[in-house]
């Protein structure tokens, strides 16, 4: 293990040590992809055909355009996330009320998979529906649950 000590020149900033463990550097960047979160792909969903399909081809078709290898989407949480809000598929703790037709992320993933069956799909949560929190501390992020 190598340790690098970086001394900050800024007054008041403490020296910080960054340890790089060479034994754990075996996972390099494996793919180049896109992230669709915070409502950023909402405009693409509204494009008319054939322009919409042309854009999707340029994004996801292998050996053509950007040829993204993975697509990461937000699990909508019904909350404003910087530049937009995405609906949650699970708004209550009652699973019979789930609706996976809300939003457009599922559509985007399906379109990507249609063009590249090998594309990796990822999901992440930015905001949580209110029923998640039982402690009154807000979201699991704010309450430092995670």
């Amino acid at each position, binding site marked *: 293990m190598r340790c690098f000590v970086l001394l900050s020149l*800024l007054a008041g900033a403490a020296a910080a040590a960054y340890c790089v463990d060479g034994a754990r550097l075996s996972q390099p960047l494996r793919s180049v992809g896109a992230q669709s979160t915070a409502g950023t792909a909402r405009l693409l969903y509204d494009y008319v055909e054939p322009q919409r399909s042309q854009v999707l081809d340029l994004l996801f078709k292998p050996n053509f355009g950007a040829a993204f290898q993975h697509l990461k989407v937000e699990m909508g949480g019904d909350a404003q996330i910087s530049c937009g809000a995405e609906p949650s598929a*699970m708004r209550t703790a009652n699973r019979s009320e789930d609706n*996976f037709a809300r939003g457009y992320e*599922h559509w985007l993933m399906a379109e990507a998979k249609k063009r590249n069956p090998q594309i990796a*799909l*990822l999901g*992440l949560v930015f905001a949580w529906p209110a029923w998640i929190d*039982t402690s009154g501390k807000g979201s699991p992020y704010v309450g430092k*649950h*995670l």
Partner: protein
Amino acid sequence: MPALTHYICVPRYTSGATEQNAATYMAEWVGGVKKHHNLTIDNVGIFNEQVRFPLLPPLAVVVVLLPPPPPLLPLLPPLLVPRA
């Protein structure tokens, strides 16, 4: 429920109800996407952008001092100068 390729979601996992709900929410989302859209999610994760508040004060004292901009009048092209 499809088998997840990797679990990278919960770094510090405890048994509280909120944590359990959060884990259930993500797992059910993966299952629902598979059931309703036949899409297999390869990875799940959480929000990883975090402001470390103890680092803010040293950054807050950085003030960039620039000299005042030069006056614009000498830079105007001669055509804009009114003629006598």
